[in-house]
């Protein structure tokens, strides 16, 4: 197993730069998820680690050895692709044994490794099947088996669950995470699904437009997003944002948005009149709270999810979403007072979107 160090890595196609200097250090045995919207460069970064894309500048080191000039097959990494990329003319056993056979490993050892991996992945019954006879989830497991038998330094996953239906995706998520806990292999996992990132990662790297926006543990990023992009990307439904300026009324500060006064807790170093973006997550809105510290709104839609309820409501400064456990009594047209949990309120600079400190 190994560390992966990504240092000032850039990638350009001709004159068009798509990754603008990325630094990520991945310690041994860590499960790191690269997440971001389509086109943010996460897959390109993964492919550079794999050796499938050239590194324009900067360095990538695996286990302390710079691999910029090392060919993919000599990097000792294994990759699981979104469309599985199984060899269609080989059965499951042969698919998994292929790389070992190329290495010239003795047949007995190949057999042991393949059967071991098949056992871990519940594929023992399917070893003679052709890929086209397998379901999506089974194919995905074969693709993982092909990676496991090699016992590589690093596992790379490129959106491995995107082709599966929702239910299977949740099941495979658990399987991959469980596999990581058992094998303890350094893993880099690419997805555009923030929920996958939140549930699977030891650490998340949020990317956008070829830059790293923030690196940290899932809950860190969720609770203390560095900027509006991270705040809006992680969490579903997404965080509510309101643009406004900081105001003061007697002793209390608030954010003055068009037609709306948003309550703030005590916040150090906050200039009155400063333009800011006020952020509050849907689950941090309550139906009761301190008097005056509320947002008045009119209910537009009530969505019951079974375990909870989402309320979309209209305010003069735009719509907001609130998430509640249980089934609060509200119907479209009702006027509602929502109370933000004050110490969970986020403030961002209106100009550059950066996080502004934290409430005291």
């Amino acid at each position, binding site marked *: 197993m190994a560390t992966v160090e990504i240092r000032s890595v850039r990638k350009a196609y001709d004159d068009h730069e798509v990754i603008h200097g990325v630094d990520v250090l991945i310690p041994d045995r860590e499960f790191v998820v690269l997440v971001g919207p389509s086109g943010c460069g996460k897959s390109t970064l993964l492919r550079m680690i*794999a*050796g*499938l894309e050239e590194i324009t500048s900067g360095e990538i080191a695996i286990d302390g050895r710079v691999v910029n000039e090392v060919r*993919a*097959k000599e990097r000792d*990494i*294994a*990759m699981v*692709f*979104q*469309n599985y*990329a*199984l*060899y*269609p*003319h080989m059965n499951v056993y042969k698919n998994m044994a*292929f*790389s070992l056979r*190329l*290495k010239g490993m003795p047949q007995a050892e190949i057999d042991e490794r393949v059967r071991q991996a098949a056992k871990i992945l519940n594929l023992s019954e399917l070893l003679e099947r052709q890929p086209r006879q397998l379901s999506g989830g089974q194919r995905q497991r074969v693709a993982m088996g*092909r990676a496991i038998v*090699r016992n590589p330094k690093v596992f790379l996953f490129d959106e491995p669950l995107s082709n599966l239906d929702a239910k299977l995706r949740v099941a495979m998520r658990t399987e991959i995470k469980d596999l990581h806990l058992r094998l303890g292999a350094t893993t880099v996992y690419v997805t555009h699904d923030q929920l996958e990132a939140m549930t699977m990662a030891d650490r998340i790297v949020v990317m956008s437009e070829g830059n790293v926006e923030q690196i940290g543990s899932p809950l860190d990023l969720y609770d203390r997003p560095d900027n509006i992009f991270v705040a809006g990307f992680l969490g579903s439904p997404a965080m509510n944002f309101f643009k406004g300026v900081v105001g003061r009324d007697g002793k209390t500060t608030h954010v003055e948005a068009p037609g709306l006064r948003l309550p703030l807790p005590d916040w150090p170093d906050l200039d009155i009149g400063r333009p800011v973006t006020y952020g509050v997550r849907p689950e941090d809105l309550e139906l009761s709270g301190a008097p005056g510290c509320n947002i008045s709104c009119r209910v537009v839609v009530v969505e019951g999810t079974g375990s909870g309820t989402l309320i979309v409501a209209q305010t003069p400064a735009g719509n907001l979403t609130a998430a509640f456990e249980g089934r609060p009594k509200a119907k479209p047209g009702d006027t509602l007072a929502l109370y933000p949990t004050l110490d969970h309120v986020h403030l961002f600079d209106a100009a550059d979107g950066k996080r502004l400190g934290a409430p005291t």
Partner: protein
Amino acid sequence: MTKTHDIGDVSNDGTGTMRDNYKGYLFILPALLMLVVILGFPALAAFLQSFNLMWVAKPGFSLGAYRALVDDAEFLHSLFNTVVFVVVVVSSHLVVGLSIALLLNMDIKFKWMWRVVAILPWTMPDVIGGLVWRFMFDTLPGIVNSVLLRTHLTTEPVDWLGQPGLAFFAVILAESWRGYPYVMLILLAGLQSIPRQQYEAAELDGCSALQKFMYVTMPNLKHMFIISLVLDTVWESRLFGMVYSMTGGGPGYSSQILTLLSYKQYFQFFNVSYGAAMAVVLATVLFFISLPYLRLSMRQQI
């Protein structure tokens, strides 16, 4: 109550589908009629003629035409020529077609231009192609002899189309050139449908370029290979214009293939049953050759 009603609807849907099918046949009727007129009828006519049943002086069932075939040296020689011709030409199409398809599938500059150039031979009508090659192989002004003489590879012009073995060789060479783009296009389409990730997975698994070709490219191309093999075999067995315009089957009948002989017997000597019998034999053989293709298309694995 609602449920019963729903079930009634379903059975109605069944008959509705029947009616839709019937409508479907109406739509393909014009095309079907065309096929019957220009394909079905001539085929049936040739079949009947070969048994002396139609358009002959004294109609009456007879296997005479087929019996005569077995003893006809010219027929046997043409049959042999056809087999040699098809085997050599189709093999060269597969080799050349695959090689060029592989080149065109790489990241090269001006790709579209190379593709156009590579397809050009196929755009030439076979009669014209035959005439052009005839000029090229001509004894005096032909470019082939001209090059051979100027490079001092020969001291006298070679009579390419006037000597039995050479004439057949020249025809094979010309058709190898004219027909490869068809195979190339099928194989190129096959190459382009191979997912890039399979190559990448192979790369990570430790494959060399040659191993990627063996373990990824070739297995993925298998179906396309069978398809082009069968289609090209059928196509080349039916070839007429190229050979007719280049050598006319000569000298003697040294470069004669079955289609030419059939044509000669039917339209020049008016041995109607005899010419038709040859066509029926050829068509029957080709039908069996195309079976693998038909099976593949039925399984919809093209």
